[in-house]
């Protein structure tokens, strides 16, 4: 509880800091929206030649894309700087988190906020509502609840994954490339339904780097496509569980990383 209170105080200052750079907000907004419009146009061009991609219609793919980006938006709003953990190590600024009588994790987590998440959220919400209307969906409250839970799980999965990858830098000094690689796999999952890929890839994004739980699996339930999973239908409900497991794993790794840091030095 106390940690949470400290976190909010830190975030307040982080927001105050970010407000000093308002021009970045505009360029960030342009950047994020251009990127997403281009991505969706590419998907649109491909799918428009058919009626679907392996059984996924254009609007279903937009739905998939936007479910991912909604989860991602919270990540990029509050936790984006986890990806630059390596910079804190290289510049030696990580020391300051260990100098205080407070959890280094909370100190680090509350260090920055980013505008980009707002652009993601706006884009994701707009795309989602278009997809919802065009697909003629009518959800009852359980589905809406599940939808919110899926978004939150998506945020947590991406956050914990970034944290685990960031921790690699404690051993190798660098983690940026690993991060880009994971992000790339993540983007593959964002753009295309996982079932168009081969078995190995599907296994990887389900079991090893579980990014398919950010959008693909929950989307199957929300879009009424559970039959595609056959006896594996329950995977569709598993996102929150996966998020919890990831939290546990990343916490363990973080502790190991701190131990490593204090024995090797930055």
């Amino acid at each position, binding site marked *: 509880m106390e940690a949470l209170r400290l976190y909010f105080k830190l975030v307040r200052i982080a927001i105050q800091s970010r407000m000093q750079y308002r*021009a*970045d907000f505009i*360029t*960030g907004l*342009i*950047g*994020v929206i*251009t*990127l997403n419009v*281009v*991505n969706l*146009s*590419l998907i649109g*061009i*491909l799918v*428009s*030649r*058919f009626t*679907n*991609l*392996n059984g996924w219609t254009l609007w279903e793919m937009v739905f998939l894309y936007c479910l991912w980006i909604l989860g991602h938006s919270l990540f990029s709003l509050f936790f984006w700087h986890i990806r630059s953990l390596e910079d804190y190590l290289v510049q030696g600024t990580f020391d300051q988190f260990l100098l205080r009588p407070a959890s280094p994790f909370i100190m680090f987590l509350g260090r920055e906020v980013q505008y*980009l998440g707002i652009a993601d959220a706006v884009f994701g919400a707009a795309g989602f509502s278009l997809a919802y209307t065009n697909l003629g969906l009518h959800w009852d409250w359980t589905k809406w609840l599940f939808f919110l839970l899926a978004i939150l799980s998506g945020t947590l999965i991406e956050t914990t994954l970034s944290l685990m990858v960031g921790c690699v830098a404690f051993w*190798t000094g*660098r983690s*940026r*490339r*690993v991060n*880009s*690689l994971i992000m*790339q*796999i993540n983007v*593959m999952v964002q753009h*295309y339904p996982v079932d*168009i*890929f*081969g078995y190995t*890839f599907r296994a990887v994004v389900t079991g090893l780097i579980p990014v398919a739980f950010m959008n693909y699996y929950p989307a199957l339930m929300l879009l009424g496509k559970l039959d595609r999973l056959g006896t594996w239908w329950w995977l569709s409900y598993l996102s929150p569980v996966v998020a919890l497991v990831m939290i546990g794993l990343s916490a363990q790794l973080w502790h190991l990383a701190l131990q490593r840091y204090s024995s090797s030095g930055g």
Partner: protein
Amino acid sequence: MKIFWAFTRQAFHNSVIYRVEFWLRFISIFLWMYTVSWVWRVLYTQRPAAFGVSLQQMVTYGVLGMALETFLDVGPEWYMANQVRTGAIDTDLMKPLDFHLHMLARSSGEMLFSLAVLALPTFTVGFYFFGLQFPADVTAGLLFCVSLVLGFLVLFHLGFLLGTLVLVTLDIRSISWAYYSLVSFFAGQMVPLWLFPSYLRSFAELLPFKSIYYIPASIYIGTLTGQEALRAIGFQLIWVVVLLFFTRWAWGRTDARLVSQGG
């Protein structure tokens, strides 16, 4: 010519030190190849005749685009932005070496390195993995190489212009997202221009971006041949010259401004 090699050697040295990073980069490119080839494969099983070329041609096109992803990494814009941020740009400007030439040498050096160490090996691996094809004949192969060099020059100058813009006004990170996604889109890195809806296609045909991926890759897979290929190379040449002049002009103005500010 000597400085080109100097930068290549340096790029080798810098990049090779981080071995983990190198392998990850390798895997990353390979994964992109995997993605495009699967997407095309799935689309082709649904309707083989919808794309105007054979599956093998299409996959070759896509994998080639991914192998040349390194093009986007070696532009001068990040270096320039970084030098401005740290204030080290002053020392660069004081060097008895034309800055534009310096950047060209640096980018080309890194490019040669990336081609040798990343593009070529990943393409070779992809070649066997995804069953790609060679250019139809020696002429096509040679034209492809010429076209590739010109494509690189176009991208370099666009990057230099972006770097110049960043020098005077903006923060590069968020702008670069818009820039790279637009370049990749209009260059036809993922999806060739002939699949664009007609209004978008006629627009994209005029822009310089298609020099970067679309023209070289089309020559490689044989959808641009003979007169058409030569005309496409002419198009690239014109853009290189136009961009060269524009860059010199823009840089001249920026340089004067930087110097008069006292750096």
